[in-house]
């Protein structure tokens, strides 16, 4: 038993309950929310609690009493005696060693827990299929402990539970870094074990993810490098960046550059046969034309009619096999009397024409020249442990949606179809700014939203796992978040925290969320007895500044 730090309080208006208890500690006892404490309970059992709120009180009965205690407002007055004060702590019961659920008793001694006891309290001691998701630090001074936090992989990547939602303020929350840390842990585990997993990662910001298989240079800070690599090893991870990474960049030409990647970097990757440029070919990709219209308001479903008309090759569209022809034929439909379909007005064709021309015309992603790859075909070639990085950072929102939808649709088809030997049983998709494609405001008919909801609801059985990141969890479609087994909360702003999505989180944890630093997360997963405050090390892969 570690040295007691206080005793349980049970008052008429603040009783111990099955869920919570209060205890007092000395004013200078340093505790933090999420610290684990233990309490002696009946039959020699121990009840563990997680600190939720810490308050400090003195015997001052009112603000006025303190004002008067400074000679009625003299700020220079020094008091001979410090008021009697103490901290009282609200803790959430997480476990009793003998499953005794009755509330802990007044006067019971409270102490800090040992490392093993913390693991037992939080349910970290007997986790099957462990997958490291960070580490936690607890207590202060000599009592300080640091231990890896592992969750049951079955509850993150199936079959018991699936999908992850990471939320937090852009830049401050390091959402991408945390997602990649988890993917790195998953890849390490798969390489060393029997898991058959591949990953498809969308690069949506600058060059963030364009060097996942290169080691971080830590800005030439040797100490930081050594500490970080050591931390990866302490967490049971390899001190190496991702392996088997392939990069897919949108095709560019002299006129339009669709990617932020440096020419040299690209050449270097291409030389090593791990970088490719992708395009869309009319003949093979016309089925996905609807994705270009994902965000177009189409209450009368005329765009949908036109898309059916075009995709099914009706009229003049039956004989075309190039994007340029699509535009020409559509233009022809816009002329007075040009519409060959009685149901679709010329005005609708004109709208369709404007939209298709804006996206396709002059866009090198949609010219049919050779020397490029099709993403759909690349998905067919994906194998276990592969990491596909698909760069969409420099594309317009419409094009980002088109590429993302295209890949997602293909992955669903791939997982549903007959798979070649070596194909992964599970594919993890990571997309930042998920709310762009599946927000509460997204048009319900959006084909991309439908696919995302499909993955959220059926992905666990299909072997498609969605790791989504967004600034505001509350803005993501509830059928998506509702199906996530794991939530990671980074630094979040107060307005977001006032939304009903966060109502179940104790206010002190909510306040902590507004102060979390980069590298700190609050994790919620069904196997943990409580929310956990964790940290994760610096990225091990190359960072571009």
């Amino acid at each position, binding site marked *: 038993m570690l040295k007691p730090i206080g005793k349980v309080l049970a008052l008429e208006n603040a009783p111990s309950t099955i869920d919570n208890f209060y205890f007092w500690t000395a004013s200078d006892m340093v505790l933090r929310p999420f610290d684990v404490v233990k309490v002696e309970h009946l039959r020699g059992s121990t009840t563990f609690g997680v600190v939720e709120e810490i308050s400090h009180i003195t015997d001052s*009965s009112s603000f006025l*009493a303190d004002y008067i*205690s400074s000679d*009625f407002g003299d700020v220079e007055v020094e008091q*001979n*005696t410090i008021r009697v004060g103490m901290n009282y702590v609200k803790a959430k019961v997480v476990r009793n060693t003998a499953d005794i659920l009755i509330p802990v008793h007044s006067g019971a001694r409270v102490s800090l827990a040992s490392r093993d006891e913390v693991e037992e309290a939080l349910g970290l001691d007997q986790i099957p299929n462990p997958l490291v998701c960070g580490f936690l630090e607890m207590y202060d001074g000599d009592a300080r402990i640091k231990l890896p936090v592992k969750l049951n992989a079955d509850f993150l990547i199936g079959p018991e539970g699936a999908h992850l939602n990471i939320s937090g303020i852009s830049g401050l929350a390091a959402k991408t870094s945390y997602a990649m840390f988890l993917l790195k842990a998953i890849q390490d585990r798969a390489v060393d074990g029997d898991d058959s997993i591949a990953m498809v990662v969308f690069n949506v910001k600058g060059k963030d993810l364009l060097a996942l298989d290169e080691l971080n240079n830590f800005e030439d800070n040797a100490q930081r490098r050594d500490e970080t690599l050591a931390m990866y090893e302490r967490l049971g991870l390899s001190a190496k960046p991702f392996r088997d990474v392939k990069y897919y960049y949108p095709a560019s030409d002299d006129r339009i550059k669709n990617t932020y990647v440096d020419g040299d970097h690209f050449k270097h990757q291409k030389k090593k046969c791990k970088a490719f440029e992708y395009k869309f070919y009319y003949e093979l990709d016309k089925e996905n034309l609807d994705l270009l219209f994902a965000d177009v308001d189409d209450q009368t479903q005329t765009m949908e009619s036109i898309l059916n008309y075009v995709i099914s090759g009706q009229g003049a569209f039956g004989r075309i096999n190039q994007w340029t022809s699509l535009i020409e034929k559509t233009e022809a439909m816009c002329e007075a009397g040009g519409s060959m379909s009685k149901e679709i007005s010329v005005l609708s064709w004109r709208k369709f024409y404007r939209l298709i021309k804006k996206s396709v015309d002059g866009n090198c992603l949609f010219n049919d020249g050779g020397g490029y790859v099709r993403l759909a075909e690349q998905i067919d070639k994906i194998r276990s442990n592969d990491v596909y990085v698909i760069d969409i950072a420099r594309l317009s929102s419409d094009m980002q949606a088109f590429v993302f939808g295209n890949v997602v649709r293909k992955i669903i088809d791939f997982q549903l179809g007959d798979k070649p030997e070596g194909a992964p049983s599970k594919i993890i998709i990571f997309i930042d700014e998920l709310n762009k494609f599946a927000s509460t405001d997204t048009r319900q008919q959006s084909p991309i939203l439908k696919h995302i909801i499909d993955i959220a609801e059926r992905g666990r059985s299909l072997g498609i796992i969605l790791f989504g990141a967004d600034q505001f969890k509350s803005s993501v479609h509830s059928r998506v978040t509702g199906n996530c087994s794991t939530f990671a909360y980074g630094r979040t702003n107060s307005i977001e925290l006032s939304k009903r999505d966060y109502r179940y989180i104790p206010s002190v944890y909510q306040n902590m969320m507004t102060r979390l630093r980069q590298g700190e997360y609050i994790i919620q997963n069904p196997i943990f007895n409580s929310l956990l405050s964790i940290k994760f090390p610096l990225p091990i892969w190359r960072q571009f500044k």
Partner: protein
Amino acid sequence: MNGILDELMSSTAIVRGQRFLSNSFCFDEELNVETTIEDGTKDGWLACAETDCSKAPRDLSRWLSKLSSTPSCFRYFLDGSRRVFKLDDVEFDGKIYPIAAGQIGIGCCRREGRELAKEFFERGLVVVLPNCALKHQREYIRAELLKDINASATLTRHRLTIDKVLLYNLDADLSFEAKAIAAVQNYMLERERLAVMKLIEQRKLRKGAYLIKDGSIEYRADDYHAGDKFNWVLGVAKTFNASRCYVRLDRNRLYVDPMLVARLNRFERTNAYRYPMRVSDREINFCVWYVRLHENRFARNAFDGVLKVEKLMTPSEVKAGVDSERIDLISAHLMRERNPVCYGADRRWADHIYPMFVTEQLAKSNYISDRLFLKLF
């Protein structure tokens, strides 16, 4: 009830009488009972007790600035507290008498740096009977009774013991209830005195480590003949009888002048005055003075914010007077205790010094709950 009293009445022949099973309750603590000598005025005050009586009142603001970064000279704080309960009425020889019980708590805190810590706490439980309840009042009978009480199943179960059986006389000078309360009060004062002696004998009191005892230190005890032992003990009373403020000096005689105390400005003190008391046929002398800690404009009456300070005089001080500088110093240190205040928690906030308030809380918070205590009987 099946408590201690029932067991006693049924199993021993020591206590006689018939119980009435009337209501048990806690006597009002504010019940004003004449229990001991107040203010020493019965023996009369004498002239100035300090070396310099030329200035009155004395403004100590200068001392306060001088002491601003000096540690306080007060280290120990002691307070006794009591709660008295009426347990029942019993009938003896056709008359009805109350039976009472009391809890007393003696709390002592020490200050380390600027923080208070518990030095000790002593609890005392007593039963108070009319003296006619016992067939004989000899001490050994009382000791037998106490033994019987403490052997009772109720007390054993709760791991408690009664410390003393007190008796009150049946004289008609006070009500029986007041006599019962006075008996407990006197027992508390005796325990306070023993606690003060304990600190003295442990050699904890010295220069820079004074003991402040809440209230008067006018114990009628032979200990006071022990010379300088009490040099570092002060009695500080927050309430006093203004009609006994003998502070105006006129041709070596003192007159009642409560207004002199009432008119004290903040950080002023009166002169110190001597008054003698006879204990075991020998004279001992106290000096007493008043200091104002707070202005009274926010207080309840003119005397709020004033403390009465008592100190036992050593033989040499009786001869030459207590050094005025020392009284100034003590007074200034007391004035520095004016903050923090217990405003809102105690209506006597202007008269309380905070360490004493906390010590009082220590004593009171360690009481057995009223319900449990009454249930014992």
